[in-house]
């Protein structure tokens, strides 16, 4: 199977700070991969480089064999803060991708309405962001990225601002949506249990410099429901990953409070 996405020797420096050192990664089409690690381990920077929002210092990312130089319609980005335009309705927000590509025609509108239905926002198409809850805003965020029908979804801690219950619901919703399209997903998160629950593979990042510490294959059966979080296998994965990053997390917490 050919790689959907391949990073080789990817390095990123911000002046003296080495954010990422020699990241190598190969992702198969339809794979769901999570990136976890302590604050400052470069996982979001990695995602932004893949998105084409940030240039790499050296090394490269290839998608379908072609090097990434700028954002493109083959990648949809789901932001941590929903970044919805407050003056636009839910539908107009979700349509921004096709609109920028100059393809905001009736067909795109129909597709986007379908997507809004898929993410559970039927009946809210003409609401404005300020009328929506945090969970609903993230649903729009997801639909907006899906509206350009990307091959790869890049998700940057999309559920981190949500309360614990809403986050669990959004996790199952995301899996339900993913099962229908099987897009390739790179999902950045702080939550280890979220990463294990969602992914085929969890990349555990370490900090200073940011690098991949371990590549954990998650061999839990799909489709998954929330019940799986209480199985011994699931807990073993979570414990394992937590032990990998525990020291780093403590160090970063102490630094943040220093």
């Amino acid at each position, binding site marked *: 199977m050919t790689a959907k996405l391949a990073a080789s020797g990817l390095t990123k420096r911000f002046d003296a700070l080495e954010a990422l050192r020699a990241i190598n990664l190969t992702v198969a089409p339809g794979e769901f991969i999570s990136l976890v690690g302590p604050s400052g381990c470069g996982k979001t920077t990695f995602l932004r480089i893949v998105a084409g*929002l940030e240039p790499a210092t050296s090394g490269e990312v290839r998608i379908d064999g072609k090097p990434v130089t700028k954002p*493109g319609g083959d*990648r949809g980005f789901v932001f941590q803060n929903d*970044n919805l*335009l407050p003056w636009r309705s839910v539908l107009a927000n979700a349509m921004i991708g096709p609109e920028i590509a100059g393809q905001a025609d009736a067909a795109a509108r129909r597709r986007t309405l379908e997507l809004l239905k898929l993410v559970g926002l039927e*009946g809210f198409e003409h609401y404005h*962001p300020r009328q929506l809850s945090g969970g609903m805003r993230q649903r729009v965020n997801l639909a907006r990225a899906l509206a350009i029908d990307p091959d790869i979804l890049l998700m940057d801690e999309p559920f981190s601002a949500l309360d614990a*219950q809403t986050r669990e619901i959004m996790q199952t919703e995301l899996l339900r949506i993913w099962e229908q399209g099987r897009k390739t997903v790179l999902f950045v998160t702080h939550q280890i249990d979220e990463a294990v629950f969602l992914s085929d593979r969890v990349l555990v990042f370490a900090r200073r410099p940011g690098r991949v510490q371990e590549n954990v294959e998650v061999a839990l059966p799909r489709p998954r429901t929330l019940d799986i979080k209480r199985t011994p296998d699931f807990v073993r994965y979570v414990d394992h990953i937590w032990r990998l990053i525990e020291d780093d997390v403590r160090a970063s917490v102490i630094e943040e409070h220093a």
Partner: protein
Amino acid sequence: MTAADIQSASRPAAPAAAPQPSAPRAWAASLRRHYLAGLVSIACGLALWEVLSRFVVANPLFLAAPSQIFVAVLSLSASGELGRHIAVSGLEFVIGYAIASVIGIALGLAMASSVLAKQVSQPWISGLYATPTIALAPLFILWFGIGIWSKVLVVILLVLFPVTINTEAGLRTTSPRLIEMLRSFGATPRQIFIKVSLPSATPFILAGLKLGIGRGLIAVVVAELFGSRAGLGRLISQSADAFNMPELFAGVVVLAVAGIAMTAGFGWLEGKLVPWTRD
């Protein structure tokens, strides 16, 4: 509770139409809630003023009572004099305000999009904004005559800067996150400007235009005080020369009403154009 229950509970419920009370009654209720205290306050103020001027000051040379001002407004309107003054001042204001808005927004756009334009104009704008340029009105009258154009120029000078400064600030403070979101979809700088920068600067631009109303009215009146054939400033200075306090106050009242009405109109416009800033 099963997982399915949780799932359906957290799904956004279908939007339900809230039962609406009958429109006039809702309107009256909202009037009571928002404006009652203000109206009572104004009524008490007017009553106090009336009592003060009739029984305490008791000298129409120093203070006119609201009732006397009301009579003066009526008689000035009946003679057509008030209408003439309002027409002249209104024309000066509208022409000056319109020109200042167009130039001010254009200048603000230029400053936000070009570093050079900003460096060239910033010292002038900062300097002139803080300067009471209204003091130059006599000079403009000397240059452009006693007619409306000298006043129009003063209005432009006073309204221009808040509009420019706000337009520039609004464009400059566009959320970098929103710009990045657009960039992730491959937006060009032009698309970013039209789809994000401009709409997010609109509340700032409107705020600048709103500030311009009060400054524009001051510009009209003060410029007319320095020399004019007609206008509310002329009415006020004439009345002052003749010690006709009711007519002097009549001019001031008309200006106050115009200011309040235009500011309220702007508030309404903001509700229509930029409703997302209202929470």
